[in-house]
């Protein structure tokens, strides 16, 4: 530039721009342009030296891209997950190199196991410094390989458009998952001729959906039509495939009792007559016991997690198994199927529905009702209508539900409160239960609730969190404060790491080893972040406090003191068969 005369410079600036289809942009700008074409509106992130060029570019994109500054990068991934789970879109996260990137690992692992689409962009040191133990250099690609669906390191700006297109395509297609793109600082700065951004629609070696084989659909329909006691288990695959309508049509025509995994909750409403309850370790009595009595088991978009199956060698041995899944690696992984139905359930379910007979299965349904009756008598009634002085987690969830009419998004952390919320919350809409299912990550709920609210801005978002888990990521109250978002926080405080205490009570002869947890004044903590709050320990205050929380125009923290030593039942003890589920 110095060698140019001023006249030259002026004439260049006033001249008609050359009719070139390309423009010169930096790698950072190309990245942001790509995000806009991908329909990204919200980014959760935290800056640092190695990602500064991207943040610098972001400064000018303020009107198009909403960046939410979290307080810890783990919070960014969970927020991205919450966003993805409520919106059905891809969550986007920015972090710097080294410590910023390593802080993403928990969220990536969580997203990977729960099939949540995320695109994480991390800054990296200059390419020339790679492998030199430079300041804040970490081998992020190798660290994140086991916890991503795909990852890639960009060292040259010209790669950015194609790599980002590939990242989004991989994150959201087939069985979704997290993708991490590590971009060296030189690539962020480097200018290149940007020929525009094209979305990726095909990668030669990648088959997001297996081809549907009609002969298996026929075989599956044959089995279903001849079944006396068919039973449907559905998982998050139904929601990820946006196949809620197709699923409903299938169960309604076939009349088959259907039970859900924790991540499948809400795909059809909780009170749908064919919805017989929750599966798994703390699931409902009937669905667990009758898994070992059905003659045909139809698993839809679920992966037979060990928390669902209990002891595998005693799991549904009497049943013929039909397994519908988009991921071929899930079929026969844990439970051998009689008929494998590879494919996207949005495609396979209608094909199956067309071939199944319309039925009622009244007698079989009555069996489920018998078990429900027993469970209500022995567990649910006491939990929801306690006569004890102290409140139970169940009654809090029940009242919350009644007030929100089952329309709220419930984001839960991990522990007893999570299982109680999943058991007793009513989900009238799909994408309403946001929880860490596969990884069971404490600290998930508060940041995930922030993301969930951004993903579903017109819905009420309530985070239900234990006193332990809240303290793992409570710094995200700062994110709530700064972004002014409306998240209702309910802390169910039992003054214990409750779920671990329950195990110690039941299986370690009450040796309560390090589960007694002290907490700060949560209401005062919230107040420090300018979030109003309230603490209650009397049942009579519960409805008014819940109403006050829900009617408050912004965020609100409600701490409810609940019984210290309460257990979540029913329970399939570790290493037992689902039929050995205990009611007490």
């Amino acid at each position: 530039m110095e060698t140019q005369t001023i006249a030259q410079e002026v004439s260049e600036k006033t001249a008609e721009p050359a009719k070139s289809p390309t423009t010169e942009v930096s790698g950072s700008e190309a990245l942001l342009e790509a995000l806009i074409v991908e329909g990204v509106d919200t980014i959760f992130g935290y800056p640092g030296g190695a990602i500064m060029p991207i943040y610098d570019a972001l400064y000018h994109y303020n009107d198009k891209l909403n960046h939410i500054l979290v307080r810890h990068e783990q919070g960014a991934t969970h927020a991205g997950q919450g966003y993805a789970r409520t919106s059905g879109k891809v969550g986007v996260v920015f972090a710097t190199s080294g410590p910023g990137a390593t802080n993403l690992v928990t969220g990536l692992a969580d997203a990977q196991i729960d099939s949540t689409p995320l695109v994480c962009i991390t800054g990296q040191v200059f390419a020339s410094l790679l492998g030199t133990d430079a300041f804040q250099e970490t081998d992020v690609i190798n660290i994140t390989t086991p916890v991503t669906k795909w990852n890639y390191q960009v060292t040259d700006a010209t790669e950015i458009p194609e790599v980002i297109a590939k990242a989004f395509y991989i994150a959201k297609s087939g069985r979704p998952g997290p993708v991490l793109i590590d971009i060296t600082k030189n690539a962020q700065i480097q200018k290149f001729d940007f020929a525009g951004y094209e979305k990726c629609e095909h990668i030669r070696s990648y088959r997001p959906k297996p081809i549907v084989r009609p002969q298996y659909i026929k075989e599956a329909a044959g089995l279903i039509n001849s079944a006396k006691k068919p039973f449907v288990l559905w998982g998050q695959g139904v929601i990820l495939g946006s196949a809620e309508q197709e699923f409903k049509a299938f169960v309604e025509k076939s009349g088959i009792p259907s039970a859900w995994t924790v991540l499948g909750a809400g795909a059809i409403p909780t009170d749908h007559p064919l919805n017989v309850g929750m599966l798994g370790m703390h699931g409902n009595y009937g669905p667990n016991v009758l898994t070992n009595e059905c003659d045909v088991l139809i698993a839809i978009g679920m992966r037979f997690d060990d928390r669902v199956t209990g002891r595998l060698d005693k799991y549904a041995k009497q049943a013929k198994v039909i397994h519908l899944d988009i991921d071929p690696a899930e079929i026969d992984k844990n439970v051998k199927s009689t008929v494998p139905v590879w494919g996207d359930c949005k495609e396979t379910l209608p094909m199956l529905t067309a071939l199944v007979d319309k039925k009622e299965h009244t007698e079989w349904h009555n069996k489920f009702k018998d078990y429900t009756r027993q469970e209500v008598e022995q567990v649910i009634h006491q939990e929801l209508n306690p006569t004890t002085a102290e409140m139970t987690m169940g009654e809090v969830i029940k009242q919350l539900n009644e007030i929100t009419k089952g329309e709220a998004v419930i984001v839960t952390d991990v522990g007893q409160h999570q299982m109680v919320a999943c058991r007793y919350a009513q989900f009238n809409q799909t994408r309403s239960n946001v929880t860490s299912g596969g990884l069971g990550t404490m600290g998930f709920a508060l940041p995930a609730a922030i993301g969930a609210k951004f993903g579903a801005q017109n819905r009420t978002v309530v985070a239900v969190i234990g006193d332990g888990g809240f303290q793992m990521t409570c710094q995200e109250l700062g994110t709530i404060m700064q972004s002014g978002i409306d998240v209702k926080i309910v802390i169910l405080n039992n003054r214990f790491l409750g779920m671990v205490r329950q195990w110690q009570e039941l299986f370690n002869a009450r040796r309560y080893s390090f589960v007694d947890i002290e907490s700060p004044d949560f209401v005062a903590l919230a107040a420090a972040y300018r979030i109003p709050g309230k603490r209650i320990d009397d049942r009579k205050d519960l409805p008014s406090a819940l109403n006050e929380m829900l009617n408050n125009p912004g965020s609100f923290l409600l701490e409810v003191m609940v019984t210290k030593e309460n257990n979540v039942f029913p329970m399939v003890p570790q290493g037992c068969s689902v039929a050995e589920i205990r009611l007490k």
Partner: protein
Amino acid sequence: MDNQEIHKQEYNITVYTENQIGLLNRIAIIFTRRKINIDSLNTSPSEIESIHRFNIVINESEDVVRKLTRQIEKQVEVLKVYYHTNDDVIWQELALYKMSTDVIAEKVSVERLLRENGARAVVIRKDYTVFETTGHREETDNLIKILQPYGLIEFVRSARVAIIKNSKGFNSKLREFERLEPGEDVIENEYLNKGQKVFTM
């Protein structure tokens, strides 16, 4: 589990992949995570530009191998994975033996040695001679035993390479693969050898 399932034997896993940095790590993790030892691993460019072929040998039950191959196939850059028992493949390992030329000349009947073991002298220098054999493990092991008493200086063996007896070759397998599991807009095999034009990256 019936006997068939827990019966362990050698399996040859053949993986066709795009040529991508980091993929070896992704594939290796699938084994290490399950605490499965890789007995032999060979990776090299295939006859098709920008496509690599891995040969991996493990000793496992078929059930485990089947699940492994599905997990490997899940990797974005993996095109196709096959697994075969030893009966289904023809395989070779290459071995090199370095011996003192003096010792060889004095004490061993080189000619006999070469003939009986199908070995070839690759290099003959004043100070040392390098022999080469190819074959199954027992065959290459055999020559070690023979040479050891004469002061084997150095020995190296390659990983196993294997060719599938029954295959129509990768070209037609890929064609079949793309026919059975079509991606959007992918017809037949027109993309073969087009490298960069086909891959989105």
